[in-house]
């Protein structure tokens, strides 16, 4: 029950894109087409779950015992960057089909603040191992959901007549605001 609550909280109530504002650069960048958005969402779910678990392990078993919590930022970014590289090599060798789908998105994930942000949030909220795992998945699924919903809306905006100054990023942000408003309704659920 606790985990179900956590999943609902991370996907809907504290949606990482629309309520926490993490990972907004890829949110605007890769949401122009549904295909790209879906690829990016899958890649983020894949990497984020692994990164959430590994950084939790590093933090709890390595940094805390030696009282090195202040090194969190640099240690995490190092681990995430290496992880992404590792996943890329691993996929290329053992799952070429999956690599063909996700490959071009993987390098983008290193500097995706959603991944890094979730790892830091897991620590800040003092989650245990299982909680970190579930929360990482929930946040990533929330990222994917919001991204895919937004891509669907943006494909429609493409056909609408938008006043010149509002075009491109500007109308996308206002749309994201409306989408965020609909997620706002989940507030108070958990």
């Amino acid at each position, binding site marked *: 029950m606790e985990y179900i609550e956590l999943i609902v909280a991370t996907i809907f109530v504290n949606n990482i894109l629309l309520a926490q504002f993490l990972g907004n650069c890829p949110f605007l960048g890769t949401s122009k*087409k549904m295909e790209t958005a879906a690829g990016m969402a899958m890649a983020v779910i894949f990497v984020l779950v692994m990164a959430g678990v590994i950084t939790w392990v590093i933090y709890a078993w390595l940094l805390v015992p030696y009282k090195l919590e202040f090194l969190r930022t640099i*240690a995490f970014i190092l*681990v995430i960057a*290496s992880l992404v*590289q*590792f996943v890329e090599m691993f996929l*290329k060798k053992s799952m070429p089909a999956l690599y063909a789908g996700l490959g071009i998105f993987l390098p983008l994930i290193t500097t995706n603040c959603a991944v890094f942000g979730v790892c830091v949030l897991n620590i800040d909220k003092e989650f245990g191992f299982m909680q970190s795992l579930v929360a990482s998945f929930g946040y990533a699924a929330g990222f994917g959901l919001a991204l895919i919903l937004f891509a669907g809306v943006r494909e429609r905006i*493409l*056909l609408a007549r938008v006043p010149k100054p509002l075009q491109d990023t500007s109308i996308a942000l206002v749309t994201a605001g409306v989408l965020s408003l609909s997620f706002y309704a989940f507030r108070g659920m958990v």
Partner: protein
Amino acid sequence: MVIAILVMLGIGAACGIILSVASKVFYVYEDPRISQVEYFLAGANCGGCGFAGCGAAAVAIVEGKASPGICVAADSESAINIAGVMGVDPGTAEPIKSLNTCSGGDRAVDKFIYNGAMSCAAMATLYGGKRVCSIGCMGMGDCIKACKFDAIHMGPHGFPVIDEFKCVGCGACASVCPKNLLSVKSMSQRLLVFNEEDQALAPCQQTCPAEIDIPKYIHLIKEGDYEGAVNTIRERNPLLLSCGRVCPHPCENYCRRAIEDDEAVSINQLKRFVADYEMNSGRRYPISCAPDTDKRVAIIGGGPAGVSCAYFLRRLAIIPRFMKTCPNWVASPAMAFPNTDCPTRFSTGKSRVFSTWGLMCTTTPAWGVISPFRACEKKAMTPFSWASVPGRTTNWAFLGRISRASGRGSISCLQSRIRRKSAFPSANARPLWAVGTPPLTV
């Protein structure tokens, strides 16, 4: 402090070791040239080359199944770089661009309210789309979504507009359009196509002897894009300044607005206006030419027909050279249309355009041996026979030969068209095209 350094070193070393072990364990052999070739490709994964993405194209190039210049999105420099990697000759190709032939858009009213999936493919399955026009653009923007280069946008009137600077001619838009309205063609392919009588074009455009896209240039003038209008006219007619003054404008007789209860649009005056605008602006708007070939053509006479001929040949990358007696370089308008108010600046302006194209003119008396009949008569020289000059041919024979050699209909279409319509200015032709198999230069 020491522990901090040690831990960071430990993490760094562990990551480094894992990655280097992984790079050995998960090593996949690749020809090193593949990554080099891929580096020079555009990386857009557009599929315009016919392969599934840039990676596949790079593999094909390295395996010798594709030429270094297949990437439609990259510039010629990258083709040269790839050729350098592969050690072969890059080869050149004329750039191709996408063109949307439908400019109806919102002008066609809707027959029903469509609430289905926002895609042309879906809409086309439902009674051929919501608009009453069953052959035109449906405006759902499948082509916009298909474009990887951000080169197509929904225009203000409900049909997509192509940005020719961004378009690389990958053909993705053409392949998704359910109405087959978009086509990807090179400039010379477009130049050689003439309107068919069964094509549903605007009456003015169908009537124009030069087949200028009149609705398009009037629209561009309305938008204030005079440069675009000039280039639209010049696509079909290089002498817009003089034609703007002397054209009998049959287009205006067929203007729908005249048949309804209004006056015809002053199409010709608008042409004159943009032509004057270009002349007075002091700038000459460039127009695309096919990559140079080594073919040479001599043109006798620099009147309207000769100039048009040179213009179109130059755009098809055949370098023309004028042979004429008049010392005044391209004196055509003043001489051909003496009773108009043609500005005298015209000829100098025109000559600047022509010299930027690398057209050459010879007004040497040596040519008199062959060319001006008058000279022959006065000096009572040996009567000159056309047939006796080696390598000489008339335009009809020349065109016929090309159409037979190429086996394609476009040139013969051009030829029959000229015969049928006696179109101004490209026809009306006195014998003035000559081609030499050994280049006929003086």
